[in-house]
């Protein structure tokens, strides 16, 4: 049967990017539909009526939403080049860490967004402090090499790539959040996602990504004045 694989995503989204990496690792050809999240397509609203969010994978007409769910689907459908470990215990560990990373990100990102879009000095400082509190937890776990020590891209590594978006926001705002001094292990990890040939496919091209968020940031700052 001819495969039809569609991905509704956004090039600036870490969750959308995860799916592209997974599909590329499996050598699956797909058609990408760039969504404007401020003007969502009828197709997206039809395929993900519950959350109305990207990414959504549509495989032979059947939609799947939620990035970690999609990644597991991809791994189970195209079984070569496994993304998740085969051993049930190792697999459980990978699922645990991916969820941990996502939970921490969803604690960090609103704080970063607050700093990025509030325009006020006090709110910005508060946002940065909040973000650093959560980054501390990630740093501790990564330092103890609990995450992964892998050189290859797997479920946890792909999930962890969203840490780059914190680094992007630093450059956008001209502030320091994830510093090498405070977070050496996390900093080393981010360098991998920027420089390592294999790992860097997890993130979009750097300059355009920074430019995109800079436009959003300065727009919000101007609006708040």
């Amino acid at each position, binding site marked *: 049967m001819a495969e039809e694989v569609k991905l509704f995503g956004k090039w600036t989204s870490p969750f959308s990017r995860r799916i592209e990496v997974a599909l590329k690792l499996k050598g699956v050809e797909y058609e990408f539909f760039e969504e404007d999240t401020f003007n969502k397509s009828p197709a997206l609203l039809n395929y993900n009526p*519950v959350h109305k969010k990207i990414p959504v994978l549509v*495989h032979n007409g*059947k939609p*799947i*939403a*939620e990035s*970690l*769910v*999609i990644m*597991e*689907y991809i791994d*189970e*459908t195209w079984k070569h080049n496994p993304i998740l470990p085969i051993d*049930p*215990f190792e*697999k*459980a*560990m990978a*699922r*645990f860490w991916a*969820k*941990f990373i996502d939970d921490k990100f969803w604690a960090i990102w609103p704080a970063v967004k607050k700093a990025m879009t509030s325009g006020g000095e006090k709110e910005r400082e508060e946002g940065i402090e909040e973000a650093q509190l959560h980054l501390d937890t990630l740093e501790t*776990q990564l330092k103890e090499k609990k995450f992964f020590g892998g050189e290859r891209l797997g479920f946890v590594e792909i999930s962890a790539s969203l840490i780059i978006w914190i680094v992007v926001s630093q450059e956008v705002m001209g502030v320091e959040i994830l510093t090498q001094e405070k977070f050496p292990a996390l900093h080393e990890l981010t360098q991998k996602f920027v420089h390592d040939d294999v790992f860097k496919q997890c993130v979009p091209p750097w300059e355009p990504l920074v430019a995109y968020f800079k436009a959003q940031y300065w727009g919000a700052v101007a609006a708040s004045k």
Partner: protein
Amino acid sequence: MAGSEVKVLGTWASPFALRVHIALGIKSVKYEWVEENLEAKSQLLLESNPINKQVPVLIHHHKPICESLAILQYIDEAWPSAPSILPSDPHHRAVARFWAAYIDHKLFTWLKGVASAEGAEGKKVALDQVREGLVVVEAAFWKCSKGRDFFSGAGIGYLDIVLGCFLGWLYVAEKRNDVKLLDEEKMPGLAAWAIKFCQHGAVKDVMPDKDELLDYANMVFQAMPKLNGQCPS
């Protein structure tokens, strides 16, 4: 298999620990249950789950597995003989995982929100949100069950367990707020499912008595009025 090879660290009132009870029951796995005191957590719990320090934890061959959804999938994979917890088809598995995420991230959050809501208006908004969530899950129930008794079909599986563990706490919210949440008129599918779920062989002996749960909740919320409705897990 010797019982001591499988240990579960949990609390009787925890819906997440209940998931593990039920899943092991479905697989007919013998296990040792360790009732934790969340006010004085055991060394074993602190060592087994150093990151979150929460129940449930499944310990199998001395290896700890944390997070109830990861545990459910581990149980299905470590004891692969029938009955299965997750379906075999990748798309059906993805649908089950999607709804499990919705139940945990949305519905459960809203249920917790009922306890922490302030004032009559606040409570009404929180309760309406839970009802709306249940209506969404009702639609999912019809799609997944395809007219059969459970989300997973003829027998209980992943989604049944993921949602079913909250039935006691839904009852608590109904009684404490004198409202109906699982409404037979608005959610006939879920209302009928709930009765069958609670009567299932793998559920009825491990599900906490709902009135005992209510007494417990009343005691906890009375003692700590500022508690933000966290289920003790």
